[in-house]
């Protein structure tokens, strides 16, 4: 079965430190991959996507993600975390009929 996994329920980092939120995938064919963020009391907001081309994808708010085919990973990164980055992060991939399958989500807490 096709799936997206986020192995960490929660990630804690200090403000100013680099952050990584992990995502691995198991999908057929060439994967399309997305990262979404949900801030408290807000809807899901698109951050970035990988379709094809460069393995390093840059997105909103200084986030980037690295597609690694051999490790079937698409980890989300940011060089210097802000307290305002604290939110719930979701990795997702479209599968047949274009519906998205999702990871469980990772709660990121950036401590001042």
């Amino acid at each position, binding site marked *: 079965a096709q799936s997206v996994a986020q192995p960490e329920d929660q990630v804690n980092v200090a403000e100013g430190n680099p952050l990584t939120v992990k995502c691995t995938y198991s999908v057929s064919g060439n994967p399309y991959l*997305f990262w979404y963020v949900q801030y408290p009391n*807000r*809807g899901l907001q*698109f951050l970035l996507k990988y379709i094809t081309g460069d393995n390093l994808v840059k997105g909103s708010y200084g986030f980037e993600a690295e597609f690694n085919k051999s490790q079937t990973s698409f980890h989300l990164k940011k060089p210097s975390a802000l307290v305002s980055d604290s939110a719930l992060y979701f990795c*997702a991939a479209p599968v047949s009929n*274009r*519906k998205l399958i*999702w990871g*469980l*989500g990772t709660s990121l807490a950036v401590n001042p």
Partner: protein
Amino acid sequence: EAGVTQFPSHSVIEKGQTVTLRCDPISGHDNLYWYRRVMGKEIKFLLHFVKESKQDESGMPNNRFLAERTGGTYSTLKVQPAELEDSGVYFCASNQQENTEAFFGQGTRLTVV
């Protein structure tokens, strides 16, 4: 440009009652999706409209759920009768082309008591 809007933002109903959720997609977006997140679990696909047609409704839990998109504009999702396990956050999303990023509404938090 207005984003995807959902109404209501919260709904608390008793088991056995009926609730109707509404989603207004971004104007011009042919694709409309419904998803649900039950607390502690992953976001799950419910169904996909292309204009007014149901392209994929494989994620609909059972026949207590009915989705419509008359005229290919806004969509409604009716739960009748509601059960406790229907509680969760219902998200609506839209996009113009498949495999492009979907834009999500704020979600409707449904609580069945």
